[in-house]
């Protein structure tokens, strides 16, 4: 099982969980399984064309999958997957 860290803005779509354990051999499989368990996440992670949204980055441990093998990046037990979306500070009142 691989630990996926869920950022605050996406926790409403994971029953408020900040960590979800998922199985899979690649990043693509993990995210597929994650969005199957929590379908509400899908539209926040993926655009209509199936690509990861450009304001969402995914890291295996401390490395960005864009510089690894993207969705084909292999993962092994003990790895941590982080989803890091861009966040805006306090909007003007």
């Amino acid at each position: 099982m691989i630990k996926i860290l869920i950022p605050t803005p996406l926790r409403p779509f994971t029953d408020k969980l900040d960590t979800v354990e998922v199985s899979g051999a690649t990043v693509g499989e993990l995210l597929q399984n994650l969005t199957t368990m929590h379908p509400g996440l899908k539209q926040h992670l993926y655009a209509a064309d199936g690509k990861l949204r450009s304001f969402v980055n995914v890291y295996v441990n401390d490395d960005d999958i864009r510089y690894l093998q993207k969705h084909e990046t292999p993962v092994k037990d003990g790895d941590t997957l982080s989803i890091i979306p861009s966040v805006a500070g306090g909007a003007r009142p």
Partner: protein
Amino acid sequence: MSGELPELSGDEIKRYSRHLIMPEVGVEGQRKLKAAKVLCIGAGGLGSPAAMYLAAAGVGTLGIVDFDVVDFSNLQRQLLHGTPDVGRPKLDSAKDRLNALNPNVHIETYNAALSSENAMQLFAPYDVILDGTDNFPTRYLVNDACVLSGKPNAYGSIFRFEGQASVFATKDGPCYRCLYPEPPPPGLVPSCAEGGVFGVLPGIIGVIQATETIKLILGIGEPLIGRFMIYDALRMRFRELRLRKDADCPVCGTHPTVTKLIDYEQFCGVAPHQVEAAKPMTTSIDALTATDLKAELDRGEQLVVLDVREPQEYQINKIPGSILIPLGDLPKRYVELDPNARIVSQCKSGMRSAKAQDFLRSKGFTSVRNLTGGILGWIDQVDPSQPKY
């Protein structure tokens, strides 16, 4: 920074003695700080601790860009502003606070919304830009202007219990667009106003930004370049992610497509009027001066002067015959007003009343004008016998 470093006065040597006795700073480092110019974008949650520590540390010139007015809801985290500052422009309270902290620091204030038109010129005299902005259009604007002008960007962002920080746009380092090429569409990511923010969180992140700024000025340590710091206050955990400069980055890559500042509201999918609404209106159907208002009242025109300040401000001074509904109460009390009345919206200086104007229009009010300069304009132009605050 170039040329001769300024000398430290006797007072400054006393004040900065805890810096001077450390070899990493020393007299030369303190003189570098005195020579340095840092521009803070925003005097809010992040800008407050950052500017206070930079001023205390002896950064010689601090610029602040902001056009907002202090609101009660700011006080939970924006330490530049105190309770008596509610209703004042943030720049005024920031300047008072920073001058009191360290009168040796030269404070430059810019009462403006940062825009594609003014950013390059505003950035020009500064060495480091500290991004304390709260919205995506300004963040991309700050990033691009930093890359285009070759100024490092000490970046921070906060949401609820989580914060992010990095240093962007150094010569060989990545920029914000290397990290996030595009902003989220409006509405998909909640803002702090909807999501809330843990009051102490900007203290941590803003001080990280100030720390990195000072390190850049002194040229010491390992800067937060190519590293993305994520802080979770609830778990009290810092994580560090690796950031790379993207060769295909549209602004700092090898074949940039953004070579000058663009329209960032459009880029972020925000309708320009949503941003414009925060600024005082200037055209005649939108606004009028105190002199105009006095003339209309003297002619006996049927107007409703709506004062949207807080009750305690209304006790200090008012336009005769005006009615008071504080801006924060307007969403539940606007029904007390006739939507077809000719309304003149008024506050202290014209910011809050512009928001009230926008709100009432969104509720179908047909004639709402904003009083330019607010009660202060009224006192200046019409009734100097009333006190100002």
